[in-house]
């Protein structure tokens, strides 16, 4: 005969098992529902656009396709067999073909708009409309989350395959300095200690597990949001938007220096491949949008900081001032397009179709100005 204590224990065990089973079954139900009807970058269908990379961490997956829709936009995304966002295969380079390679992050990849409305594709259309003998091909090599370091490493991998005539590095001034600092270890390629490797491997495995599940991604987001709210109460907070701070943290200068070295490296590799390099500085939305700026200025002031609206653009421009690499600040062109329909989406803070038009116009004018003989010889040395 079993004792009452043992009976109570087994009763609790049965209830615990039943509850766990219900939690798991509902997890599966919500996971399925979110995968079917959910619309976020956390969705496995979106994450399916990427695959692992031993050096870069991840890259676009050749041949991947998805439809991405949120309350703000809806777009089909296709990755070509070469791993770039394009509806067509890159194919061998024809003698009359001139290739412009766009390197950058999500602002270049532009999953918010259809491919034919991205500024890369619009630039290609503008260049080809001029009736030059050469056929221009603009290759969108932007990858979500990449910074200057990843772009440098990525470019080294693809340069021989792409055979570009012009490489355009699109620097997002809002976070590229921060990302350069974070990604610096990727350049060293030094082997890590066993414990660190094991720790990272476990963390990576966990991260991958979370990334595969939409339910876990959202729960993770809730935890992060909650801890972010607690953190300021535990330690003095660093004012946000350090890239734009009047007195930024030292890592911003370090990050800009790393970014500059990455751009120089890209230019050197490009030059060896016979390509010219140029840089476009992409501003953040609040640099163009006044209400957004006032809101962020207030938020930074509340955190004890001071926001310089064009601080990050100016810092990158100064860092490139003594470089022979020509650079274009896209901010004036975007500001000139105000007032008018939004240039950036409100929630995703990426370019709207109109924003892409403005950027394509600015890049087209910049190329025409810098390479007046480009129509005849795109490989001519830039002025």
């Amino acid at each position, binding site marked *: 005969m079993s004792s009452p204590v043992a009976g109570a224990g087994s009763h609790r065990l049965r209830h615990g098992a039943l509850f766990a089973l*219900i*939690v798991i079954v*509902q*997890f599966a139900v919500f996971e399925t529902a979110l995968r079917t009807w959910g619309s976020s970058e956390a969705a496995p269908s979106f994450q399916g656009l990427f695959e692992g990379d031993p050096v870069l961490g991840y890259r676009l997956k050749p041949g991947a396709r998805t439809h991405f829709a949120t309350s703000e936009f809806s777009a089909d995304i296709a990755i070509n067999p070469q791993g770039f966002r394009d509806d067509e295969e890159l194919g061998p380079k024809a003698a009359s073909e001139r290739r412009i390679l766009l390197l950058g992050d999500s602002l270049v990849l532009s999953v918010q708009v259809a491919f034919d409305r991205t500024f890369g594709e619009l630039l290609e259309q503008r260049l080809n409309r001029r009736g030059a003998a050469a056929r221009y091909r603009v290759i969108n090599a932007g990858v979500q989350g990449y910074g200057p370091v990843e772009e440098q490493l990525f470019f080294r991998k693809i340069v021989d395959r792409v055979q570009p005539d012009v490489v355009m590095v699109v620097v997002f001034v809002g976070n590229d300095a921060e990302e350069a600092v974070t990604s610096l270890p990727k350049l060293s390629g030094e082997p890590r200690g066993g414990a660190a490797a094991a720790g990272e491997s476990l963390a990576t495995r966990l991260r991958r597990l979370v990334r595969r599940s939409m*339910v876990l991604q*959202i729960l993770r987001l809730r935890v992060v949001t909650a801890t972010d*709210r*607690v953190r300021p109460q535990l330690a003095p907070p660093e004012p946000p938007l350090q890239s734009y701070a009047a007195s930024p943290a030292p890592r911003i200068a370090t990050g800009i220096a790393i970014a500059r070295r990455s751009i120089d490296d890209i230019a050197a590799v490009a030059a060896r491949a016979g390509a010219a390099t140029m840089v476009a500085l992409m501003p953040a939305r609040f640099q163009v949008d006044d209400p957004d700026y006032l809101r962020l200025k207030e938020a930074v002031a509340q955190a004890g900081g001071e926001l310089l609206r064009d601080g990050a653009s100016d810092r990158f421009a100064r860092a490139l001032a003594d470089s022979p690499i020509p650079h274009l600040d896209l901010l004036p062109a975007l500001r000139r397009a105000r007032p008018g329909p939004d240039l950036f989406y409100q929630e995703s803070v990426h370019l709207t179709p109109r924003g892409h038009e403005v950027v394509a116009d600015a890049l087209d004018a910049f190329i025409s100005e810098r390479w007046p003989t480009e129509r005849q010889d795109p490989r001519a040395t830039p002025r």
Partner: protein
Amino acid sequence: MVFNSLHFVWFFLVVYGAYRLIGHRAQNWLLLVASYYFYASWDWRFLGLLLASTVVDYSCALFLERAPTPARRRAILCVSLGFNLTLLGFFKYFNFFADNLHALFGSLGWQVDFVTLRVLLPVGISFYTFVTMSYVIDVYRRETPATRDLLDFAVFVAFFPHLVAGPILRAANLLAQIERPRHITRDQVRDGAWLIAWGYFQKVFVADNLAPLANAVFEPGTTQTGVNVLLGLYAFALQIYGDFAGYSNIARGTSKLMGIELIENFRFPYFVRTPQEFWRHWHISLSTWLRDYLYIPLGGSRGSEWQTRRNLFFTMVLGGLWHGAAWTFVIWGVYQGALLIAYRAASGARIYRRLFVDASPWARVTTWALMLHLTCYGWLIFRSRSAGQIAALTGSLFGNFAPASIDTHQLLIPLVLYATPLLLVHGCEAWFDDGLIVPKLPTGVRYSLYAATFYLTMLFGNFGGAEFIYFQF
């Protein structure tokens, strides 16, 4: 510090942890300090009002018990009521009356410069002044003895779960529980935990997700067709219910965890069929307060039919004004009074029996649907910012319904998705006529509801930290 903030979660965990470790008297001290901290977290300057209200009414009640003559007792009661009503009138209604008198004199061509004070409304003042007034009136009526313990009385007034948005509690209910040692049962912990979880679900999943749908309809300058106004009204009806009932449930749940029972403030108010029933199921603590301390003293239904109607009307107009110093709330009170009077008048008609007494299922559904839409129209008045907006939205509802213009994606689908889980659980509660049926359901069903509540709240809840609507009242 709102219930749906991380600040409150930490606050409650610390207070509750300490509460479980100490004895009765120390618990009361802890509750007092915690409640004052909770209130001061909005604006410490208003703590003085709370203290003044506590000390004045505590003293008045003691004087009442010792007063030798009825005249003296009446005088003391007047002092207490005068103090509370002055407090409420000044902080809540001063600007309203000053602005309206200024406008009235201006329309008569008299330029009178009123003193304009931008008086800030202390959070919860409508609730705690009603609590202290009811206590003094109960002592005056000899329905409750005056407490001699200032600590117990201060906890009764300031008890943080009900301090800023009710329920409006009576001394016979709460003070009695504060005075005696509390024993926390397993059922209280189980039910309290469920009420807290369900309250958060009502707030962050239902109310805060439906708020943008309602706001889109009531945004000044927007023009909507009648069908979309109706959907916006459904959204607001569920938003205000989820918001207020959610708050009340969290208040009840946290109190239960501490061994204190608060009264049920909502009981499936959208499932009722008459205006009278509605007020027995919506904001129960306010409607019973108005009944006991306003309607009945005015004569209730003891006089002629005309006097009863007058009393109903006056009570509901003041009830409307209690919600805020604005003409829309007065109009809402008039509307509610008119509904009650109309219902009372209809009770003599022959059709009344067929619709409400010996009602067929069809009659039941019809009267329920009618009452639901009358309630929703009341919310149109309540939520509008001006009489002009009431007229414009009413015009859309009745003059430009345009069913083909229904906004399926932005209004209908979100409304159905966010309302369905709430209505399913309420359907179950109403079926069993038990607002706490969920923790008593068979194990598998109960666990499924617990898990679903957790997933829906965490995955789809709006954690923007929006304040509760009733804080402004």
